[in-house]
């Protein structure tokens, strides 16, 4: 199955340090078209009609988000590019930032035009500090060419916090606070950064914008499935021969990606969507990669037959317990209890009662956590209990005479 490089079309083709190489590949033509030939409403209608959904994991309709922000009252509005990319096993945004910062800047500029924002931020995770210079220079070159007369774009660096990839925690971080999640409503398009209308979009989402404006929504509609239009960039890692970044039409099967392109063998299971993502056993390897099936932000980590399921789930939960912002009890306490329980299972000291606890806790966290971290933290547990229950049962501590407690 060949890749379809729309988002990645310039990567390893242009020189990310030189805007002239970008201009030679239709660079900023979409922005000019939006300015010269389209009203704000028309730009937003095009994005709505394209069916573009957020590529950071949540899959929210991009056009709708922009429309809400444009219609919100006020002159002070913000566009934020979420380049915090902390999901375990995700590096596709890094690849894009390294190789084609100009398309991203163009996407931000179009977004700002559409909603009426004069200030944009790129929130860059601390671990990507080495890209700061490249991005700052790309913004500078763009400004010199006159493409940012309607907008300031500033870099904002994170300081090491996975939860700051969550949009409301990200905004709190820009406001100089602990990256804690906010209660919603209100939602960012009406009250976001500094209480003003704000759109936050993932790097990959913004990378799609120029091509949609140039080629039209109808072109985009013809790619993908009924509810998942376009392509998705995947980051493949783990027990594979060819780890890396791959862009596929949405609806492609996990098997094509993992075995066809990344050359995995003897696969036991695949974690799709990172630490809060799904655990797919090999029997389900033909699952389509789409919002209506299984997707996330595109992290695909492959585990072969030598790997231990309980250990994988335990390490995942340890990560989530550490990164929880701590604001809401279901997540703050729940992830800790789950991690402690899974540690005991990993040592062969689980109990029957523990499995009931994990199931009940999963329900509570999914229903009542304040954000996606807590809501989806139980996912690896519920999936592994469903597909690999034997692994749990065999780790239950036997009491005298072999009776299970």
């Amino acid at each position, binding site marked *: 199955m060949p890749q379809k490089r729309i988002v990645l079309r310039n990567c390893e083709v242009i020189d990310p340090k030189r805007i002239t190489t970008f201009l030679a590949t239709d660079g900023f033509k979409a922005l000019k078209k939006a300015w010269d030939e389209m009203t704000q409403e028309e730009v937003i209608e095009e994005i709505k009609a394209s069916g573009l959904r957020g590529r950071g994991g949540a899959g929210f309709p991009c056009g709708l988000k922009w429309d809400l922000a444009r219609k919100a009252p006020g002159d002070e509005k913000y566009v934020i590019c979420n380049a915090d990319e902390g999901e*375990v096993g995700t590096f596709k945004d890094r690849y894009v930032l390294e190789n084609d910062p100009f398309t991203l800047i163009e996407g931000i500029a179009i977004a700002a035009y559409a909603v009426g924002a004069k200030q944009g931020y790129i929130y860059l995770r601390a*671990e990507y500090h080495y890209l700061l210079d490249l991005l700052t220079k790309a913004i500078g070159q763009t400004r010199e060419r006159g493409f940012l007369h309607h907008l300031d774009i500033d870099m904002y660096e994170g300081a090491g*916090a996975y939860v700051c990839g969550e949009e409301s925690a990200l905004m709190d971080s820009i406001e100089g*606070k*602990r990256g804690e999640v906010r209660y919603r409503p209100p939602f960012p398009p009406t009250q976001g950064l500094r209480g003003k209308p704000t759109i936050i979009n993932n790097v990959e989402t913004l990378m799609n914008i120029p091509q949609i404006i140039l080629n039209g929504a109808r072109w985009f509609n013809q790619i993908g499935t009924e509810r998942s239009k376009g392509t998705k960039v995947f980051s493949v890692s783990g027990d594979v021969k060819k780890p890396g970044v791959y862009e596929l039409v949405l609806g492609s099967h996990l098997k094509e990606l993992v075995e066809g392109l990344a050359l995995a063998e003897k696969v036991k299971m695949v974690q799709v969507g990172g630490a809060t993502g799904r655990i797919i056993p090999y029997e389900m390897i033909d699952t389509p990669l789409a919002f209506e099936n299984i997707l996330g932000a595109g992290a695909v980590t492959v585990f072969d037959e030598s790997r231990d399921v309980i250990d994988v789930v335990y390490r995942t939960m340890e990560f989530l317990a550490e990164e929880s912002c701590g604001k809401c009890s279901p997540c703050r306490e729940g992830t800790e209890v789950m991690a402690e329980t899974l540690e005991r299972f990993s040592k062969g000291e689980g109990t029957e009662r523990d499995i009931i606890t994990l199931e009940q806790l999963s329900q509570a966290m999914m229903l009542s956590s304040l954000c996606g971290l807590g809501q989806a933290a139980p996912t690896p547990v519920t999936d592994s209990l469903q597909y690999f229950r034997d692994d749990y049962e065999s780790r239950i501590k036997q009491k005298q005479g072999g009776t299970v407690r």
Partner: protein
Amino acid sequence: MSKMISAQGKRQEDLLILLEEAQNKLGYLPKEFMTELAKSLDMSVSDVYGVATFYSFLATKPRGRNVIRVCRSLPCFLKNSQTIIESIEREIGIKPSETTPDGKFSFELTNCIGACDKAPAMMSNNDVYGDLTPRKISQILKACE
């Protein structure tokens, strides 16, 4: 210390940026600095401390001149990050969360740094190194000042 980092004309919103700047200049965030910063921003010390301790790249205790962070997340674990951790322990003689007595290195385990295609990976200060082997570790560490 407050002469090195001027909070004059800054707002509470600038707190994280000011802490990051101080971290770069001083290597960590001393208690006295945070107390003065709180006063000049008209915030409580506990609020400043709360931000400083939230972010894993900010330190409230002295660190070595070179901060080595090895990724301990699953994709790197699958590619033998444990061997890398042991390699570093042997080379610089400390375990994760420790600093060498001469102040040259601090060693930390960190969560996914987005270099999974080059696992196992680590950061040495702001530089990312992937496809690590014990020999590469040795070269990287020897090059640190």
